[in-house]
């Protein structure tokens, strides 16, 4: 009985919590997402009327299954055809014209690419198999999977891809936009209030499409400026012997071929920029929470955590992994 109770709770809990998801278009935190959510609720209302109306007709058909013809109108074929024309053509035309006007002529202008000059700042987001590279034009800051923006500020996201098609999607803040090879797409990012908003790649992009998530940290403007300044700096120098050992190992092994740590000789561009990896809250596009142990685990065997990721496992000793983990954790 107890298990059944627990199972029922598992099934019911999300129903009760519905709409409170961290990645839910139904808990909008920006004007664009809010408009879309409102549009949804209206469409749902109209759809419910249509659905229950049609089902009511079927129920009438069942109740009157032994009597031909319609209630009140009897067996007049012209009335029957009139019903088909009214419900099948006239009413749909009215409803659809309204929908078209509201959503496709009016609302669409508010969720489209932001007009030139209408935004306060621009960030570049580049999709990779399977992480998001984030750049802040005009600064040297580069990060991955964790996008910091000032809250209550119109931010233009310029979305491109380094390989296949991805789709940049933070549902609480706006609709999605694909990143297409050879094309540059733009979308507005605006957060009503400071907070953390989860997003995820929405276009199937291969093996680890499921683990290509991101977080948007909308911060008070001051806090954001401080963060950005920190990210512009080159990497910290190691503070302990173990960290020095870790840096040495990092630069000697294949790590440096794929990753950049600004201020060192590591200048690879296949994997995420690690200059301030220690300041990030997660690893592997949100697959692990970031701490020294997780870093160590990740470096030790990325393939068992994120099978198919482009990062190979290295043939090093446990002490070596610990040293590299300690060094990277230090890069705040």
């Amino acid at each position, binding site marked *: 009985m107890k298990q059944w109770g627990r199972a029922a709770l*598992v*099934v019911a809990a999300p129903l009760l919590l519905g709409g409170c998801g961290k990645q839910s278009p139904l808990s909008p935190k920006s004007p664009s997402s809010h408009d879309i959510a409102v549009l949804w609720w209206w469409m749902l209302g109209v759809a419910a009327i249509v659905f229950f109306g*049609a089902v009511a007709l079927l129920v009438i058909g069942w109740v009157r299954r032994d009597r031909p013809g*319609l209630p009140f109108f009897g067996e007049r074929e012209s009335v*029957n*055809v009139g019903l088909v024309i009214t419900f*099948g053509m006239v009413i749909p035309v009215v409803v659809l014209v309204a929908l078209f006007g509201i959503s496709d002529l009016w609302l669409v202008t508010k969720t489209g690419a932001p007009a030139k000059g209408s935004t306060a700042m621009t960030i570049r987001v580049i999709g990779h198999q399977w992480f998001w590279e984030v750049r802040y034009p005009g600064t040297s800051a580069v990060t991955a999977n964790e996008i910091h923006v000032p809250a209550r500020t119109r931010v233009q996201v310029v979305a491109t891809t380094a390989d296949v098609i991805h789709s940049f999607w933070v549902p609480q803040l706006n609709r999605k936009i694909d990143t297409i090879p050879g094309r540059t797409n733009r979308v507005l990012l605006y957060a009503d209030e400071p907070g953390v908003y989860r997003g995820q790649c929405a276009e199937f992009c291969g093996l680890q499409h499921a683990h290509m998530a991101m977080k948007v940290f909308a911060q008070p403007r001051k806090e954001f400026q401080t963060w950005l300044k920190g990210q512009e700096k080159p990497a910290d120098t190691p503070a302990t012997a173990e960290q020095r050992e870790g840096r040495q190992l990092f630069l000697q092994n294949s790590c440096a071929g794929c990753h950049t740590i600004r201020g060192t000789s590591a200048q690879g561009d296949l994997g995420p920029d690690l200059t301030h990896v220690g300041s990030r809250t997660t690893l592997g596009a949100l697959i692990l929470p970031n701490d020294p142990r997780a870093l160590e685990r990740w470096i030790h065997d990325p393939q068992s955590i994120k*099978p198919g990721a482009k990062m190979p496992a290295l043939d090093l000793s446990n002490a070596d992994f610990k040293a590299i983990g300690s060094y990277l954790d230090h890069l705040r």
Partner: protein
Amino acid sequence: MAVALPKAAEPRVDRLERIWKERPGVMGWLTTVDHKRIGIMFLFTSLAFFAAGGVEALLIRSQLLQPNGTVLGPNGFNEAMTMHGVTMIFLFVVPISIGAFGNYLVPLMIGARDMAFPRLNAFSFWVFLAAGIFMYVGVFSGNAPTAGWFDYVPLAEKTYSPGSGIDFYALGLIFAGISSTATAVNLIVTIFKLRAPGMSINRMPLFCFAFLAVAFALVFALPALTCALLLLEFDRLLGFHFYDVSAGGDTILWQNLFWIFGHPEVYIIILPAFGIATSIIPTFVRRRMVAFPLVALAELLVAFIGFGVWAHHMFAVGLSQVTTIYFAAASLIIVIPSGIQLFAWITTIVTGTPRFKTPLLWIVGFIVLFIIGGLSGVMFAAIPFDQQLTDTYFVVAHFHYVIFGAAVFPILGGLYYWFPKVTGRMYHERWGQASFWVSFAGMNLTFFPMHIVGLLGMPRRQYTYPGDLGWTGYNVVESIGAYLLAAGLLMVVANLVVSLFRGERAGPDPFGGATLEWATSSPPPAYNYAVIPKVSSPYPMWDAGDRDEDVANLAGGRMVLEQGHETPASTAVDAEWDEILDMPSSSPWPLVLAVAISGIFAFVLLEQWIAAAVFVVATLVVLAAWHGKEPAEA
């Protein structure tokens, strides 16, 4: 025939039996050109693929039963997800609709003795079988495609999808396209030219209008797919750069070509189901369809407008706003013909005296599911909403309501409805109704929560998901629903298999059907009708005098055509008597040709160009042999 034969007719019927008899045993099936036997082969083959696609679906649902599932792993999931889509669309729904239902029923409904091109018909079956095997050879040799059923480039290019999985997909679909094209051309000519004299176009059953629309849509839609796939294979096998941006190609070209095919394909999938619905409803509500001409027109319009809406699959691509608005408008317009059909069915049911037997239950279920799928579909014409919810589980819910609810439900209803005709035995009514309710519950339990989980932000096509986003409970329900749905479908299979051996004898017309197929015996003889039936309305079985006239004609030797392997041809619109067609008899060449073409595809896949060329020559030789002199009749 429905009525006992008059004495004078017996020698004529005997003669027809002799003329139309095919070889016995396995050789008979391998060389058959009988549209009914070909239809049955299409049925069993596509049902086998349905089972395969179903197993893939259950694997997917098992993997997603809980967060961080480990049933399949990322590669296994991507294989199952891709093959589920490919199998269900290309190897199940389309072949069972046009290959099984179309093939078996269209000639019967129009009073013809076969399809217009019987050998082409056999060829299209063997090609379909070969293409299906071709793709599953890929799966079982560890080379399943993993780029999803719409296979976007550059993910599907060699750089990102090495190995031959995508080649099995692309070549397999080109291969299967040959089959669909052949069947479609055959249906068009059959419907235009082989209608019994008297069945002018306005007396043609709505079922045939639906199949006419589908056949035209296929003929015009498939070339776009074939072209897209050919360019892809040029890229993959020969190093071309059609889709390679770095060399001046374009990735969006693939999406345009694919969806120019892909959206009409949606209507290709559901229109046959509409045809089935318009056959079952009049029979069980015992009245004619309301607004017949409007429905016929709507069926054709849906197929036509369906070609102008493809870019609504691409609203998140970043197309210009003008483009998206145009395609949104077109997508809204197509709602109208669907609305007409929907309310024509509903009004017919309301104003008739329905008997809610198994086939009608599936159709009522279909109507309910189609309304839900249609309403969620309309929402995707709202561009901002589409851009928010596309590529989430909301869209997965939507198209399963349309494809499973609006296409597969009528197909299952149709299986019950025509089972007595094809086998001569009745299905079990009580178990039939139970199978419906279990499937209906399973269907909704599986797919309805997907709307919600999509609205909670769960993207489609991810092999796993974290447990802290509020998605888990819905996924549990969906997976339980999937197992229930599978149980419902197994009940359908069990019912029909047991009934095949132990069902009551059905007789020619167990339901009081309206269309001609109920005029002949169950199962129908090889020649379908001993006498070409008289037709004076779209409900010929309800014009009682006409059937008496058939019997008189048979006795008097009018419209019997027992001098050879013959069927009459009529004019395309008014169905006036045109000429007598000498129909081809059974032949091994369609099968041999399909084998030869299989050789071409197999060796292209292996990049053995010389061997492939040899099979091209072999194909030409077989084609020549096909058109050689027929062996004398035994």
